[in-house]
């Protein structure tokens, strides 16, 4: 019998029951993260059916999508948008009623849910983690099976602490060698998606393997797993190692004393066996990855920074050619021209993809001693209150402020434009977020995805480059 993949191992360890007729399993959930946008209907459903929350101690709530990134000390009364305020108040009421731990806006532990989980040590290897947010894949960086779910499933997990699930296929992304100097996990992720496409990983769990992955920091692994959903895979995985254990140790929810040894012994078994069989394997040479930016309106529409924006006729596939034509028109770009030198009006450094301390350090390195170009508005939004404090202790806030960046309070901010941070129509943005979809950051806004260092450089020079 062939060995098991990491996904196989975590799956097997969490199956409560499999229905022989339908093949559907009840999968036990170790950690359920919730936020204000995808839970109100779930709690309403629970209430209507007279059901309770089975494991409030395995549930953690944060407010992040709707929260403004300025003046948070004013509390919910300071949230100007009445609908956003209502959603935040609804979460506040629901967590109080069901006695769920909650980091509200303004709490130093508050921030983007996918930054908070790992930061608190709640995210641990071998766990199953779900959240009503597709970027839950982030937590896979710790060797946890983590993915987004819909609101009906949120309600199901609240009521039963299980998820109805079908086993997915195994995909390996083998990245050999090393990334070149100046090439980051973000570049690697955008490169992978440009190779496999946004549906390349559909139906699969994507395990990132190989020398280049081992060399990534935990922050880098989180960025990579975060973007696995943009390659179609609901969940990404990196097997845990010494870096993982060192990251978790000492965090508030990390196992203590004797429990740590027991946990670590188990965590060390969490890797794909040598003879494990993957349904699909993609090989990438770390040295082949260039700094990468997107030119279009799908994360798969990415090219090397030194590359040329494609034309519709460059694609053999008529569907891709049509998509290219639509994207170029939306983005206001011309095929056949270099992407380098494209002027931007806005820069956004933040989001669950790139708002951790390492990301802010990389951006600050570029910003230091320079100034944001005239006509450019640039903002830095730390992923959590704790990231913000750490950055301030390191003096990064001063570097940004002196360079003309806005230094904000934590939240999802301009990644999805549900809060006051949005693009105006026609504005072009160098963004460290995860989606360049039409209208994502604001109606008719134009998003170019890139790493924090490249985004900071765009802020300083006023152009992509």
């Amino acid at each position, binding site marked *: 019998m062939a060995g098991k993949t990491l996904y196989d191992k975590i799956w097997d360890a969490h199956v*409560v*029951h499999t229905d022989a*007729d*339908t*093949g559907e399993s*009840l999968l*036990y959930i170790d950690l359920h993260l919730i936020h204000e*946008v*995808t839970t*109100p*209907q779930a709690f309403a459903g629970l209430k209507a*059916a007279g*059901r309770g929350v089975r494991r409030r*101690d395995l549930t953690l709530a944060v407010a992040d999508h*709707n929260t403004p990134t300025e003046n948070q000390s004013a509390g919910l009364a300071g949230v100007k948008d009445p*609908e956003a305020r*209502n*959603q935040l108040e*609804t979460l506040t009421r629901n967590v109080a009623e069901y006695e769920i731990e909650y980091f509200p806006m303004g709490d130093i532990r508050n921030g983007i849910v996918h930054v908070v989980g790992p930061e608190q040590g709640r995210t*641990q290897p071998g*766990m199953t983690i779900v959240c*009503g*947010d*597709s970027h839950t894949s982030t937590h896979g960086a710790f060797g946890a099976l983590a993915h*987004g*779910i*819909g*609101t*009906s*499933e949120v309600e*199901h997990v609240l*009521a*039963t*602490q*299980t998820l*109805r699930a*079908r086993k997915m296929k195994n995909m390996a992304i083998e990245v050999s060698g090393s990334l070149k100097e100046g090439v980051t996990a973000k570049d690697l992720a955008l490169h992978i998606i440009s190779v496999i496409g*946004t*549906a390349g990983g*559909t139906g699969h769990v994507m395990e990132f393997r190989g020398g280049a992955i081992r060399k990534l920091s935990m922050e880098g692994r989180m960025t990579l797993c975060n973007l696995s959903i943009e390659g*179609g895979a*609901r969940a990404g995985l990196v097997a845990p190692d010494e870096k993982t254990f060192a990251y978790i140790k000492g965090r508030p*929810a990390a*196992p203590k004393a004797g*429990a*740590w040894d*027991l946990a670590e012994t188990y965590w060390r078994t969490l890797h794909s066996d040598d003879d494990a069989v993957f349904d699909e394997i993609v090989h990438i040479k770390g040295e082949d990855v260039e700094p990468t930016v997107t030119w279009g309106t*799908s994360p798969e529409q990415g090219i090397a920074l030194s590359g040329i924006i494609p034309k519709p006729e460059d694609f053999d596939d008529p*569907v*891709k050619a*049509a*998509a290219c034509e*639509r994207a170029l028109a939306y983005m206001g770009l011309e095929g056949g021209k270099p992407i380098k030198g494209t002027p931007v009006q806005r820069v956004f450094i933040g989001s669950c993809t790139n708002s951790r301390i390492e990301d802010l350090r990389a951006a600050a390195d570029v910003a230091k001693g320079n100034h944001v170009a005239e006509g450019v508005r640039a903002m830095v939004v730390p992923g959590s209150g704790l990231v913000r404090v750490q950055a301030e202790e390191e003096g990064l806030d001063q570097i940004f402020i002196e360079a003309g960046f806005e230094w904000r309070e934590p939240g999802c901010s301009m990644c*999805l434009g549900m809060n006051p941070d949005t693009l105006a129509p026609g504005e072009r943005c160098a963004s460290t977020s995860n*989606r360049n*979809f039409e*209208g*994502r950051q604001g*109606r*008719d806004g134009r998003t170019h995805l890139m790493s924090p260092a490249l985004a900071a450089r765009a802020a300083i020079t006023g152009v992509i480059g």
Partner: protein
Amino acid sequence: MKAFTQLTGTAAPLLEKGKPMSNVDTDMIIPKQFLKTTERTGLSKGLFHELKTLSDGSPNPQFVLNRPEYATASILIAGKNFGCGSSREHAPWALLDQGITCVIAPSFADIFHNNCYKNGILPVCLPEDVCQKLAEQAGGSNHVFTVDLEAQTVTGPDGESHGFEVDEGRKANLMAGLDEIGASLTASARIDAFEAERKLTKPWLEPAR
């Protein structure tokens, strides 16, 4: 959840340069400004908002669902990787609120696909050339299709039937309009047993509170 068995209704083709539109993401299906609701209903106002309205806020007469012949469409035909991106269940809620209970496409993104089944919407996967042909038929003068879940067929106005695959368990749940939480709660004893074992073998997973 309302059961889905058989549906006869108008099919609307969502096209891009004459081809079923690919990579229709959930931000496109319902943009962020409509996610601030605490209800499941009333979301059709946000459905394809940026496609169906012009920059000045007036309706875009070119958009398929704004055309009078497709106003009552219950079937949508689109291109591959439909529903990619955000996990927002507001996307199927908005389709449902519009009266669309079946989407036909060559492929679907996983989370959206799953969310459809939780809301009585049938996602039908058919090959790209078949979707193209069906989209062309839906664009013609007769755009009434029949989708039969029991028989697993889609029949276009030309009378030709196209068989599709569907997971047996999902099919049964959809046909019954199953209350999944209620059904899962019947396995409570199994969940109890799993939890007891988990506490014993992985004690570090029990938060100290």
